[in-house]
């Protein structure tokens, strides 16, 4: 292949690297109203009185809005396809505030200074209510997070607001209890992952203005332009024809921007005032009032025979959706459906879950989307099982892992049509030097070196749900324009989709310009999430380009007076094989724009009935200081099976980035609340994401598999890469200390204390 598989530069590389003004706040007009929010200091309260008169009097203030001013219909901020699984439980401003940070008032004024002054002048009297801060207490608590009658779930997801349930469910195959009780060895443990933050470098931000037709134009740093349009239409109660949503370059998303965290506020201001307005969340707001990972406690019971055959797995997940239900019903599913199927040997499995409302900030979507939590639990349980069986954990996995061609009962019965997990694991073990280094070496100076390993999987879309689309058209000079509504959030999808187009049309990647995402001009796409862009939108691009190629040939045949079948097309010219006459692509392009009713423009949509999982293995080598508990990552080796690698540079960097994020989650990134429900890790000072000194060496390789249903054999890469570090590092720590840490992050302090207690 000429374009697919090549390490081409990202199309936006030069603009990004030379600091061009391409992000929202570089492009917003300078005379926007500044929008800020007054936020609740209480975890659960009702606004008894709110007086905004003094605030409104502040010089430069344009508007102050409270719950009295906003529409009464509820909606969700989750960016998800119809039928929306997340309950409709939000208002733009609610009289009932449900977490520390829940918005109480919107203030818009001509500059920051006046808005800050006005915020201080709003007088609020709260009726403070008892709150639920611990998610173990939520289900069937007398305290209700959503007592309101207008709460509603659109889908049958097992939700019940009278029980604080955002979702619940169960699925199984076989009699898991019977098989477990027949097993020689079982492990039963509970694993806890907190509501860690995506921490993209660009915080949430949106600018709104009205266009010449009076329509609301919304430029937002978002992964989901079409969903934002629907959400705003729901929130404001205005038709979608009155709203345009588009995105500039995005300073990172990782799922955070799959929720319309900030858009409704400036949209409401601009819709009401007619004036342009913008909101930029501070880092503190981004840490404390946003859409982090769902806190989950995953209980795993796993059983095997003495010879190491894993026979049954029982997984129960308790997930904390916080004050609102964004992505609550869906993230939880992945904690079982994308962890249990790693093992193809099971005779029975069960997966059950409850997702509960609490008085903490609402969770959302974060790279890995529940799979990360489930895989941490299941992979750690398997490592614990290996310990009990006195078996090498690599051997144990090779014996039990899912193989190509196998049916995956816990993965909706799909078949692993491409799976090189065995290669991934074997190569990862070689790269890290497993044979020589497992389990540990005592260096004799108070330091221990040890290794740990884990596997991971993800999906390549939401099967039967996600829609990807692409429009490709030929310009009259023989170049192309590709329009998409998938959002390049730094991942490079504009580039890799152009690579796929170039492969079909046999042209240089530079000949395909890419535009999007814009609800006015891009064909419908559910958006950039669920690892779906390469697989779903990529297939749409492939189909669109193949069809355009046919159309080009039809027109060329007309021009060259032959049948399309008699033509040879090499991407630059069509040649009549019978008489040697030729038409260049530019000539065909020009011809298409004169006396022609068969436009050389094609739109194709694609949705997939299956979601072939990418697989990977990762191994960590650490050095642990037995006195201080400090863990230093020396080396992280990973091998990924993402099918065909469309752009090896971009795939590698995504993998490295995901692994380092995973290292942060394993060791550093902590979420701590005080007793009244205020989040303490509210800045980059308190919330420690890895720097270049915290990650050791990261080495990534790719294992070859070919996914028959994917574009050019490709599967996804974006999310899976965050899934292995936590279980691999916890494993390495256990190998060094003999202690299993089942709550993330594993801090030096806990390790040191654990060593003392031993």
């Amino acid at each position, binding site marked *: 292949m000429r374009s697919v598989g090549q390490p081409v530069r990202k199309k936006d590389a030069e603009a990004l*690297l030379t600091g061009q003004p391409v992000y929202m706040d570089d492009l917003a007009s300078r005379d926007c109203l500044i929008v800020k929010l007054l936020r609740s200091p209480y975890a659960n309260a009702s606004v008894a009185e709110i007086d905004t008169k003094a605030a409104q009097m502040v010089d430069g203030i344009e508007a102050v809005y409270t719950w009295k001013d906003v529409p009464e219909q509820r909606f969700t901020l989750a960016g998800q396809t119809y039928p929306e699984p997340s309950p409709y439980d939000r208002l733009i401003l609610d009289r009932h505030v449900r977490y520390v940070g829940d918005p109480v008032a919107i203030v818009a004024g001509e500059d920051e200074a006046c808005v800050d002054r006005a915020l201080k002048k709003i007088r609020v009297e709260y009726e403070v209510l008892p709150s639920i801060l611990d998610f173990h207490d939520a289900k069937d608590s007398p305290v209700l997070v959503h007592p309101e009658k207008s709460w509603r779930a659109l889908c049958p997801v097992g939700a019940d607001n009278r029980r604080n349930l955002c979702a619940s469910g169960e699925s199984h195959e076989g009699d898991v209890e019977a098989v477990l009780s027949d097993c020689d060895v079982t492990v039963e443990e509970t694993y806890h992952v907190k509501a860690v933050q*995506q921490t993209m*470098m660009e915080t949430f931000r949106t600018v709104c203005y009205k266009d010449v037709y009076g329509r609301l134009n919304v430029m937002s740093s978002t992964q989901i332009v079409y969903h934002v349009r629907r959400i705003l239409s729901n929130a404001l109660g205005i038709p979608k024809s009155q709203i345009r949503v588009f995105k500039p370059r995005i300073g990172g998303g990782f799922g955070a921007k799959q929720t319309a965290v900030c858009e409704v506020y400036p949209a409401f201001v601009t819709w009401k005032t007619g004036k342009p307005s913008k909101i930029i969340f501070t880092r503190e707001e981004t840490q404390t009032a946003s859409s982090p990972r769902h806190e989950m406690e995953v209980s795993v019971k796993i059983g095997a025979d003495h010879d190491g055959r894993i026979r049954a797995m029982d997984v129960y997940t308790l997930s904390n959706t916080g004050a609102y239900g964004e992505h609550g019903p869906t993230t939880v599913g992945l904690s079982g459906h994308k962890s249990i199927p790693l093992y193809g040997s099971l005779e029975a499995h069960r997966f059950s879950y409850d997702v509960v409302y609490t008085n903490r900030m609402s969770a959302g979507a974060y790279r890995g989307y529940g799979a990360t939590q489930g895989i941490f639990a299941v992979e750690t349980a398997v490592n614990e099982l290996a310990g009990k069986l006195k078996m090498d954990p690599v051997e144990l996995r090779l014996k039990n892992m899912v193989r190509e061609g196998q049916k995956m009962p816990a993965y909706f019965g799909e078949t692993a049509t491409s799976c090189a997990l065995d290669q991934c694991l074997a190569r990862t073990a070689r790269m890290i030097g497993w044979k020589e280094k497992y389990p540990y070496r005592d260096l004799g100076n108070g330091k221990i070196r040890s290794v740990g390993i884990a596997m991971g999987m993800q999906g390549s879309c939401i099967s039967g749900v996600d829609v990807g689309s692409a429009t490709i058209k030929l310009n009259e000079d023989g170049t192309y324009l590709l329009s998409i509504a998938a959002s390049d959030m*730094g991942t490079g999808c504009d580039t890799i989709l152009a690579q796929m187009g170039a492969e079909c049309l046999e042209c240089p990647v530079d000949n395909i310009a890419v535009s999007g995402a814009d609800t006015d001009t891009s064909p419908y796409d559910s958006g950039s999430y669920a690892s779906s862009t390469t697989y779903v939108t990529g297939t749409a691009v492939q189909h669109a380009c193949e069809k355009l190629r046919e159309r080009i040939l039809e027109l060329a045949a007309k021009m060259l007076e032959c049948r399309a079948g008699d033509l040879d097309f090499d991407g630059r010219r069509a040649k009549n094989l019978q008489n040697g006459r030729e038409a260049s692509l530019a000539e065909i392009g020009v011809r298409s724009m004169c006396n022609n009713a068969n436009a050389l423009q094609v739109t194709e949509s694609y949705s997939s009935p299956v979601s072939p999982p990418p697989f990977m293995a990762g191994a960590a080598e650490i050095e642990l200081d037995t006195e201080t508990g400090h863990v230093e990552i020396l080396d992280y080796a990973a091998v990924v099976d993402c099918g065909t690698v469309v752009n090896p*540079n971009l795939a590698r960097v995504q993998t490295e980035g995901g692994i380092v994020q995973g290292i942060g989650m394993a060791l550093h990134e902590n979420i701590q609340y005080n007793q009244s429900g205020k989040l303490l890790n509210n800045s980059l000072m308190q919330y420690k994401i890895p720097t*270049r000194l915290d990650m050791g060496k990261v080495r990534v390789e790719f294992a070859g598999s070919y996914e028959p249903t994917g574009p050019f054999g490709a599967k996804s890469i974006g999310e899976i890469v965050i899934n292995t570090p936590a279980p691999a590092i916890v494993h390495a720590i256990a190998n060094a200390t003999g202690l299993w840490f089942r709550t993330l992050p594993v801090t030096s302090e806990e390790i040191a204390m654990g060593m003392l207690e031993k």
Partner: protein
Amino acid sequence: MQINVVLNGKTITEEIAPDLLLIDFVRNHKCYSVKRGCETSNCGLCTVFLDQKPVLSCGILAARADGHAVDTLEGLLEEAKEFAMFIADQGAEQCGFCNPGMIMNAIALFRENKEPSDEEIREYLAGNLCRCSGYEGQLRGIRAFLEYKKQGGALCVQ
């Protein structure tokens, strides 16, 4: 209050509020490469040069720059571009939001130390956070650039 600042080689005399931060001052002057990623001087996105030394412009009052020279990536484009293309060749710019700050600090490093070791690179740039790339690609790009410079590549800027 009034300040005189040489911003990217151009003298600016301006009446400013005493609490104006340098980051907002330079952005007001269309130096949009300078980004804000935090409020606590932890991310490095806002790195500019104050009299040729890298500083965090979010942690300095514009008033402090009175009588001094401030340079942003906009003023160093030539130098930056030569280096930046080595980052591009690794695909190590993802969202790109962190890159201007990182490139400013990397340029400062190259000026101070022509042949830094990997360890020195990591340490010098430790304050420049990147959430996307995992840093390895940036390191590969820096190494490739230094190698190219060592081979005397400085003359053939594309």
